[in-house]
């Protein structure tokens, strides 16, 4: 109801910004990439969970090829028993109020984040201790190879004990050592930031950035009127750009797939009260048949307008995912044979039945997400010839959590630069942990591989265990094993970018359309006069 009004207001506001400040094209960028954080810009509560928190700096960062590189840390070592990280900090880092960033701030950030219960998983952290002004030790309870990802994603905040230190209102008034500092945040409308004069790194090309938080329609309208310089676009609209903008795609590991409830329905309930289990999807033959029936290239073509690639696992192409996981699909013949052998017989209603149970279940998707809706509808159509009826059902996220999360198949998306996500998705310990492993998947052999990966001596050894969890020749969470998901597509994120803006090499984005595009913000250049 509000969107046309909001479109007008924001369009006018964006227009006024451009008119009132005609020379600002090089000084100011207007971005409409969505992703406004509900809890503000506090890293302890989840801000910047995929890295590059803008206002804050992290200890390490990832290059476009995902290799680690120094950021606040100039050196980092892991002890032989893999229980202590020792980090050496650069000595020229300052917060945007001019005060120096020290090891105390780093220790405070890690200790406080471990207690805050935000999205940063610091359960493995025993204690963070400042050894001196520029060295900090992070001690773990047990070896965890993925702990290094926290060094890449957790933005460092000023210790609460200092002036302007971290407090309850920090999310609304963030103070950090990142390239930009906050000027104004009008929730639901826009965020204005300006350069941090004390930033230790390369000075950004643009003095000010304005982030507009608009819906799809408003974003497109603003792009047409020249009100934004870079805007996130749904793939379906990528061909309808105005002449002063071009479509730029950012490859991603942002995937979408069907999460299957793995347990039969026995009336059990999750702590949230939601029912657990589904008698149809608990049958491995059904899950494998669906995996075989999905025509993934067509899904990419029809739903993503070609902006994406087929997905067969949660981390396709990343070092911790097997490269031989691609299956020959669609193969309806093999899928039908699997179902026949498992005792699912076709009956008069066109559906397969087994012991009186029809092969019918709800395929739930968040109602406001047009991409997931299309994926649900098209995949249901692809599976129908097998005699399996997936009923696409749109629900609000609250309803999904309350009613559907553990008993319906759900179109979900993940994708991370860390294999920690694999651990969350498939370890039985995380069954029912929010959206992770919401299908209550449990396989002791997979658990064993995942634990071995976490305890591995180095990343290469860990990757072998991560891959074995997917398929070890006998079992695994992947399509040849338990087929606990039917992964469908990896999205390419599409942005409308002003033809004068050079955004450089965007790299590979994790889950979440929007903020990941700012990862290489310091490389962005304005190429027109």
């Amino acid at each position, binding site marked *: *109801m509000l969107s046309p009004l909001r479109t007008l207001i924001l369009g006018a506001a964006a227009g006024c910004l451009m008119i009132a400040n005609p020379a600002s094209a090089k000084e100011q960028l207007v971005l409409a990439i969505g992703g406004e954080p509900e809890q503000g810009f506090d890293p302890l509560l989840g801000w910047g969970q995929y890295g590059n928190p803008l206002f804050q700096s992290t200890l390490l960062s990832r290059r476009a090829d995902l290799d680690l590189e120094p950021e606040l840390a100039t050196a980092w070592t892991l002890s032989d028993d893999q229980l202590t990280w020792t980090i050496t900090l650069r000595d020229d880092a300052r917060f945007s109020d001019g005060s120096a960033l020290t090891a105390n701030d780093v220790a405070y950030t890690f200790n406080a984040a471990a207690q805050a219960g935000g999205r940063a998983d610091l359960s493995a952290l025993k204690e963070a201790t400042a050894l001196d002004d520029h060295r900090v030790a992070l001690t773990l309870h047990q070896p965890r190879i993925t702990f290094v990802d926290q060094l890449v994603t957790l933005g460092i905040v000023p210790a609460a004990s200092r002036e302007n230190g971290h407090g309850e209102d920090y999310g609304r008034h963030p103070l950090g050592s990142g390239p930009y500092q906050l000027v104004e945040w009008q929730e639901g409308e826009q965020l204005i930031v300006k350069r941090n004069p004390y930033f230790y790194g390369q000075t950004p090309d643009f003095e000010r950035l304005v982030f507009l938080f608009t819906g*799809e*329609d408003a974003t*497109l309208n603003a792009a047409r009127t020249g009100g934004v310089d870079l805007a996130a676009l*749904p793939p*379906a*609209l990528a*061909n*309808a750009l105005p002449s002063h903008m071009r479509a730029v795609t950012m490859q991603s590991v942002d995937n979408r797939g069907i999460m299957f409830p793995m347990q039969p329905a026995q009336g059990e309930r999750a702590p949230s009260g939601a029912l657990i289990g589904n008698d149809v999807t608990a049958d491995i033959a059904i899950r494998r048949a669906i995996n075989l029936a999905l025509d993934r290239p*067509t899904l990419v*073509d*029809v739903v993503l307008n070609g902006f994406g690639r087929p997905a067969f696992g949660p981390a396709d192409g990343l070092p911790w995912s097997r490269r031989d996981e691609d299956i020959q699909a669609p193969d309806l013949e093999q899928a039908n044979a699997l179902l026949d052998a498992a005792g699912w017989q076709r009956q008069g209603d066109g559906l397969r039945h087994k012991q009186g149970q029809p092969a019918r279940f709800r395929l739930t998707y968040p*109602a*406001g997400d*047009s991409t997931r*809706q*299309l994926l*649900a*509808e*098209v995949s249901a*159509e692809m599976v129908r010839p097998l005699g399996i009826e997936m*009923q*696409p*059902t*749109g629900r*609000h996220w609250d*309803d999904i959590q309350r009613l559907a999360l553990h008993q319906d198949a759900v179109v979900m998306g993940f994708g991370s630069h860390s294999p920690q996500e694999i651990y969350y998705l498939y370890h039985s310990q995380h069954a029912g942990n929010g959206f992770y492993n919401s299908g209550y998947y449990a396989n002791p052999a997979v658990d064993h591989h995942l634990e071995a990966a976490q305890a591995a001596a180095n990343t290469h050894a860990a990757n072998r265990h991560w891959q074995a969890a997917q398929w070890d020749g006998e079992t695994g969470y992947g399509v040849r094993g338990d087929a606990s998901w039917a992964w469908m597509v990896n999205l390419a994120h599409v942005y409308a970018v002003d033809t004068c803006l050079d955004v450089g090499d965007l790299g590979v984005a994790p889950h979440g359309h929007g903020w990941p595009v700012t990862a290489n913000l310091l490389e962005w250049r304005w190429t027109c006069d």
Partner: protein
Amino acid sequence: MNATQPRLRALACSGFVALLLLALLSGQWWLGDLPGRMQFDARLAPPGVDHWLGTDALGRELWARTLAGLGLSFQVGFLAALLGSAIALGLALLATLSPRLDALVRLLIDTLLSVPHLILLLLIAFALGGGLQAVVIAVATTHWPGLARVLRAELFQLRTAPYIDISRALGKSRGFILLHHFLPHALPHCLVGALLLFPHAILHEAALTFLGVGLSPSQPAIGILLADAMRYLSGGYWWLGVFPGLGLLLMVLSIERIAHGLRRAL
């Protein structure tokens, strides 16, 4: 001749709407799964010989989806109008029983009329979690006050009619008078009220669904078709919005015409 003209006009309109309804209702049967059938090689095809009203982004025939959508809208409109009129009639009859009940009914009517009904509609539909049932309840519970006020006024006028006095003098109970005098008198008014409520309900169903708190996005409701069309209009795919919109307009206008005709005829 002058007296029969409105009746004739209403009759003609009724005939037209009956035909439309026949197509819509029988469509549920003969359309089968056509509204949902995808043709990946004919996505976003413009109107033509092969695809009468064009196809949508998944290659589904727009004429079939529009018909199915109008059928759904009719269903919602019918149920909401029925429920809304029943509430209005029930409360109007209740108001005649005692001054206290009348005060209560008036308070209810005034309270509901004082709140913008679109906001109330959205709140109720959202609170009930969306879906057909939620839309019907939301529309019915927000649209009875107008009709209830008219019916109440009618019945209060009737209370002083000589034949009601005679009935009371003959010792008939309040219940008897309610059922045998008030109800038959109120029913024709109620029917017209329901018919006037009908197009209103259809439009609100489309609006709620368009705004995302109505029917499921997987159902080919008119609101869903129009919301989908919004996404593609800028690409020049005009048929996605024009035909479902026209269909809705025709149906609403026809039913409204009948209601007005009937009101004049009565």
